[in-house]
């Protein structure tokens, strides 16, 4: 991992997932977003509260990527998915399950792992 400045609230958010204290930001109209975010783009509300992320989500779509960017060269093939956690969706790698067995609707939990290629932190989904 290269020595560089933290990406503010994004890295703080990863820290929170790592310590099982994951959260999202919610406006007063119930729209959910991941940090960093100062305003709800849907209703312009700037009063965003920190809310606990649900323990599990559902795979909304997924793909096995065989031609990666150089930062994922040694990770490929890997499964990237978008999982629905109620008011927010999250994009991450699916691990702990055979790629052929991943399906829309699968229930997953949120975790932080490491990229094989660079050792950098990455959002990971694991079957629940």
């Amino acid at each position, binding site marked *: 991992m290269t020595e560089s400045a933290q990406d503010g609230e994004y890295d703080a958010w990863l820290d929170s997932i790592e310590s099982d204290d994951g959260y999202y930001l919610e406006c007063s109209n119930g729209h959910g977003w991941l940090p960093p975010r100062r305003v709800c783009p849907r209703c312009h509300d700037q009063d965003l509260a920190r809310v606990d992320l649900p323990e599990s989500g559902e795979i909304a779509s997924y793909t*096995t*990527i065989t031609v*990666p*960017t150089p930062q994922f060269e040694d990770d490929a093939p890997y499964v990237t*998915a978008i999982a629905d956690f109620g008011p927010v969706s999250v994009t991450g*790698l699916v691990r702990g399950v055979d790629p052929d067995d991943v399906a829309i609707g699968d229930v997953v939990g949120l975790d932080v792992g490491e990229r094989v290629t660079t050792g*950098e932190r990455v959002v990971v989904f694991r079957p629940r």
Partner: protein
Amino acid sequence: MSDPRIAGASVTQFGKHPERTGRDLFAEAGLEALSQAGIDPEDAEALYYGNFMGELAEHQGHQGPLMAEAIGLDVPATRVEAACASAGTAVREAVKTIRNGEAEVVVVGGAERMTNIGTAAATDALAIAADDLYEVRAGMTFPGAYALMARSYFDQYGGSHEDLAHIAVKNHEHALVNEHAQIQQEITVEDAIEAPTIADPLGLYDSCPITDGAAAAVLTTEAYAEEHDLDAPVAITGTGQGGDNLALQDRPHLAQTPAADKAAEEAYGDAGVGPDDVDFAEVHDCFTIAEVFAIESLGFYERGEGIAAARDGETTRDGDRPINLSGGLKAKGHPVGATGVAQLATVTWLLDGSHPRADAVPDSTVGVAHNAGGTVASTTVHVMEVQE
């Protein structure tokens, strides 16, 4: 307010030209467009230029003045960046500049140099059109993002990889006579289905190639065209642009492209036409599934119906509404920052009868160009019509 006339348009050969600089590619297209227009370069008043990955591919920012210089113009020059919709967005700026009376002659164009950095670096460069924190760091690539959208479409509306293969087969067939096209090679549905996977369900033949190339067009007012006796029968009569959340995860739908819905609605309203008036369209098929999203957003098909259009022969050159007679991005190639102006050129040539596929749409009067950026977080739509 005058709808801009297209006085000249040009594209370079699209393909692999790793040894050619961006400035050389753009100079070729720009000089040819100016020459074709028959306009004194002294009369040009502005340049809008599309480019996406110039910093990464050529270590070159600030390309506006560089490219004006490359075509011998001393004018205010602005680079416009909206990922793969950069050139379409440049067209929109040019249209506004002509319409609001700020200029009588505007050059619009775009160029991209991509093959010099190799596939891995180009994949990386294209990926930065996505959200870095939440998508690129989760391994998302550009094909990967469209794969997520394709799988979601199949899940919601049905459809199969074989349906997508028919889109690739069609666009390859359309490109066979297009001398500017990167790929002039017929393929079969079996070829497309059996091709190596990039990000399932999308394979090699669901994806546009990595391309070097440039495109340029000269826009002018109706009055200037008349005064200078220019041959410029085609006008841009409608322009629209729409946006969306950058990251797929933040959108309510993975299988719809509302930014394109908004752009189409605005462009149709601006031109005073509807989808049923459109004879043909050039749409942004960076991946086969993207053509499905495009023809649904343009109102040619209901949601969930666009997937079967190529298979049913409706969007082929013999069909009722041919799509991508140039071969599309799929076969013609996709030099990212040039694509929107290449579409403008194609529609112009199909309407004025000079395109090699013009015989597929004889007597057509209305064509549409749809240019999408990223996973359709940016879209422009332009309506073009033959004027009396």
